[in-house]
């Protein structure tokens, strides 16, 4: 076995099928999408298809009355901000509370996780009923009325109406990841901290949160990438022709406007945006990790 694994040719033979499959279904489509984004239009629908460089990307960000892409990117950044600063802290608080050994721990854990297992389309349809029937009826009861054109068509409320179900649905997901990390902290560390007088918020801030930092980074990555790719919930809630988020813009540009190259450039932008933020996140967390050994060396006097 050792002899087989040390032979480069053998390794190549084992890797080859996966490599071919991966290249065929992942690498080639990505390369093709990048190539399409650099053309005036894809050859399948335009006989005069030609290379235009970054023109499509410039077009994406050129201000024009009906160019929805800059606004869509801003909306996705706003959603990312809300996810990071509201959804994740809320998930963390829930995870800390549930893992603190409260009565009915298992019930709460499952209850908060239920929205995650429901299809996003179903969740969106439930919230559609809330926005269109339940909430207006409730507002009417207390003498108020829904905003002009309803929650889902009013320019001031529609993005929040989309963000809330998405945030609500994935709170349980992040909570469960954090809960798992909190539960994996060795009990003797917690007990030692309690013996030293730490409890409640102090225990969470000084012991638990620092110890689950790798998981917080994972949640942050998922949350950011998910924000930039958000599609299903707004697609159901806002209708088929909405272009208020980058993924929606890409879809409508491709399948309604039939501008495949422009849609490809939007797709490339989304991928690059996700990559940039992932690298940025790794850099921020790596900086902290790198600082820690130095700090440890200083403390030990070496």
């Amino acid at each position, binding site marked *: 076995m050792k002899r087989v694994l040390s032979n480069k040719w053998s390794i190549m033979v084992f890797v080859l099928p996966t490599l071919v499959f991966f290249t065929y279904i992942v690498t080639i489509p990505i390369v093709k999408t990048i190539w399409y984004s650099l053309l005036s239009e894809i050859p399948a629908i335009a006989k005069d298809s030609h290379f235009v460089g970054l023109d499509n990307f410039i077009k994406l960000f050129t201000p024009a009355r009906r160019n929805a892409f800059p606004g869509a990117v801003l909306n996705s950044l706003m959603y990312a901000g809300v996810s990071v600063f509201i959804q994740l802290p809320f998930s963390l608080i829930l995870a800390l509370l549930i893992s603190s050994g409260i009565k009915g721990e298992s019930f709460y854990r499952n209850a908060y996780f239920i929205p995650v297992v429901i299809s996003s389309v179903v969740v969106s349809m439930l919230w559609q009923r809330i926005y269109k029937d339940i909430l*207006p009826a409730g507002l009417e009861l207390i003498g108020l009325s829904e905003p002009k054109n309803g929650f889902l068509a009013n320019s001031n409320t529609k993005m929040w109406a989309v963000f809330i179900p998405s945030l609500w649905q994935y709170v349980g997901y992040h909570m469960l990841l954090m809960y798992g990390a909190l539960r994996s902290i060795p009990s003797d560390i917690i007990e030692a901290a309690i013996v030293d007088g730490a409890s409640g918020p102090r225990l969470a801030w000084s012991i638990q949160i620092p110890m689950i930092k790798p998981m917080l980074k994972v949640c942050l990555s998922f949350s950011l990438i998910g924000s930039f790719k958000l599609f299903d919930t707004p697609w159901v809630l806002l209708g088929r022709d909405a272009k208020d988020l980058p993924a929606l813009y890409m879809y409508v540009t491709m399948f309604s406007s039939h501008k495949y190259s422009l849609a490809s450039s939007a797709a490339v932008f989304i991928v690059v945006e996700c990559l940039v933020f992932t690298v940025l996140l790794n850099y921020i967390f790596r900086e902290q990790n790198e600082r820690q050994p130095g700090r440890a060396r200083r403390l030990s006097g070496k």
Partner: protein
Amino acid sequence: MKKIVALLLALILVMGLTPVLAEQHEEVTLTVGSIWSAESEANRAPFLQTLAEFEEAYPWIHLEVDWNEANAWKEKGETLALSDSLPDVMYWNAGGVLWNLVGSGDILALNDYLTEDIMARIEGGTLTDMTFDGKIYELPYTKACSMLYCNTELFDKYGVKIPETWDELIAAVEAFKAAGVTPMTVGGADQWPTNMYTDIIALRYAGDAACRAAYYKTEGATFMTQDWLDGVAAFQQLIEIGAFPDNAASLTRDESEVAYFAGEIPMYVHGQWFAGSLSAEMQQKVKAVKFPAVGKGYDNQFMGGAAEGFCVSAYTEHPDEAFIACQFLAEHQSKNGFIAGAGLPAWKYDFSAYTDTINPVMLQIVAETSSADSFLLWGNTALTGDDAVLIGETVFDVLKGEMTAEEWCEEMETIFE
């Protein structure tokens, strides 16, 4: 003598075999792309019957049907076209949507197959939006048109006259509003149902020639005329006097129609297929009428025409059989769909035996449109790509009260740049 007898016997044998040989066909399987996947679709049952009739008429041609939801099929069909893998025969829209595929060489021209006999059976004028550069690419199965559907029960209850003029329409809206009844409905979130209103109002103000020129981007066409402006302003007037529900912009078409089906909405402008969705009880209450006149003389013009049909993929390996299927499906769906109350026929057929069983609202539409001056495809169907998206978005903005009539005309004018 023996030789002659043997020769005769051989001749008889060969002649006897000839019809048998002639009847033999090679088994062929064709793929068919279809909409009407939902059981509730008015066209589904007639299409199932059409398929059964085809199976009986052409037992050697097997059809494998891929059922889809209408919008999903449009997107799927366009994706399949990009990879040259369209089904042999398929349902498709006419106008700009068809042109997208014709322009990229995905659809087979049918001229070589269309005999004089077949052409004589197709209703006049229905091939207009299926013909490009003199070549016919699609065969219609139905003729579409938008109508004003009035719930006579509500009109009688509140003593309101079914409107024939714009002033009567405004008076009817105000009368229903005063009685606490929402006068009209529209599914704004889906955008295209709003086009049903704006298109017919614009047609009444600007007329078929001006609208056709604009939607087909003919040289010299413009939206910057007083007629277009008045048309959009008239639609705004309906919004301002409260003709639609307050949240109309956030309602989908399905949601917007619920109240009408429940008998709570007196007026609705929509396509003829809406008549097929009415329950037997509602069919007795609803009267389909022409959209009111505005005094410009375009009162007998209709939005619609033959906007749906069947076409053949340019990549089919069996073009002869695919044409047989395409023509059969279009002609028989035209007959079966009309008998079932799902649509107006696009092929000539004697329906006198079915008068008692056909949806009465559909018969009213046939009567109203039988002497129509013209039919014009809806703007979002005639226009293509970005232009079609733009007319949907701008009309949606007008519905939301975020765009004036002047801004609408100016923005639509950009399609000519």
